[in-house]
């Protein structure tokens, strides 16, 4: 067994395996730290800054981003001090300046008592530039279809050359990990549209389920499923079966594992 690291979070003595982040250790203990850009399945990027904590003990007393800060022997962490909440209020207010109607921000504003909106830009774009969509597309899916452009107040999410993406496979993971719903997937008939504020990112034709005939997934996405779930086992995805029909099946066809498909589909099935 690996040596555990001893640290203190909000006065509680905690043990965590080395390499875990302060945020993960705190969450495991049921300690609430607000986050927006953090997602358990994605590499942390520390962009939203809401998860700041005060650290002292074995390192210099300072404010750190807990989704990146790793646990350390003798670390003393405070997650809910006035200094932190003052910063959090400002961060939330800054984000509200661009995204006044994002529900998750409004909830945070209520929780932390943000009553003003001094930085209102007149914009109403739910995208808070957390980068979850960019990361899931890049690191989990490997499509590299999304990117941020420009800097400062002009920063925004788009595709290469701001046209319909050639690289998008239509999985919809970006919409699923988006904390504010700024990216939407719209399926109408056999057409899928992935869009964000003022821009359609990609369009797809959906393949029909061979059992129920419902259009359910774009071809390029099914190709990825095939590559990830079946080919390593020397198999080919020969049928297109939608998740609903797949669940209803009384037995899994010869040589296939239900878990493999679910694993491969985990991002596109809305949760």
């Amino acid at each position: 067994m690996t040596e555990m690291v001893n640290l203190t979070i909000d006065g509680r003595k905690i043990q965590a395996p080395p390499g875990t982040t302060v945020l993960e250790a705190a969450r495991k203990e049921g300690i609430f730290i607000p986050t927006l850009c953090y997602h358990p399945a994605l590499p942390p990027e520390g962009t939203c800054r809401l998860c700041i904590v005060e650290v002292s003990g074995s390192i210099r007393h300072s404010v750190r981003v807990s989704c990146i800060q790793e646990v350390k022997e003798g670390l003393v962490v405070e997650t809910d001090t006035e200094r932190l909440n003052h910063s959090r209020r400002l961060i939330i207010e800054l984000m509200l300046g661009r995204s006044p109607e994002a529900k998750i921000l409004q909830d945070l504003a209520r929780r932390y008592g943000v009553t003003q909106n001094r930085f209102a830009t007149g914009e109403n774009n739910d995208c808070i530039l957390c980068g979850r969509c960019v990361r899931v597309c890049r690191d989990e899916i490997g499509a590299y279809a999304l990117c941020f452009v420009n800097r400062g107040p002009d920063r925004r999410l788009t595709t290469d050359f701001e046209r319909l993406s050639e690289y998008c496979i239509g999985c919809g993971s970006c919409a699923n990990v988006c904390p504010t719903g700024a990216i939407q997937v719209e399926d109408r008939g056999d057409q899928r549209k992935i869009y964000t504020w003022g821009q359609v990112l990609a369009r797809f034709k959906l393949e029909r389920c061979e059992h129920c005939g419902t259009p359910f997934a774009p071809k390029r996405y099914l190709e990825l499923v095939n590559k990830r779930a079946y080919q390593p086992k020397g198999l080919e995805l020969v049928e297109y079966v939608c998740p609903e029909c797949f669940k209803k099946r009384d037995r899994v066809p010869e040589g296939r594992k239900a878990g493999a498909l679910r694993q491969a589909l985990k991002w596109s099935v809305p949760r």
Partner: protein
Amino acid sequence: MDVAAVEAILEKYPQVRGNLIGILHEVQNHFHYLPEAELRYISKRTGIPITQIYSIVNFYNRFSLTPKGRNEVCVCLGTACHVNGAEKVLNAIEEKLHIKPGETTDDMRYSLEEVRCIGACSLAPAVVINEETYGQVTPRQVGKLLDKYK
């Protein structure tokens, strides 16, 4: 698309990762902007996703996705130049060329840019045309200065 020119630049950088910005600088200098076809070609050749290249190109002011003129006129609007009347110099250039900062003349002869401090504060107000730096520029000199560049 000018494959030969891009290839010649890529050849100088056997190790692509970490050198993308250097490559983009050379492409920018060669074409006076970064054409889409060339960027897509670089992406294919280097394996760097086009979205990442596009992101970088958009991040830095030096890179342009629209064609620039043969001569790049940069007016410094840093603090020292600003207090020494850079605004008036810029206005004189705008009037002479009939373009605003960020634009290019129709004959592709000049592009106008405003920059923030080029580190030549002792020469304020300073104007850089291509690689040449001019100090203590007055609005009246502007015409003569620009005429030198064909």
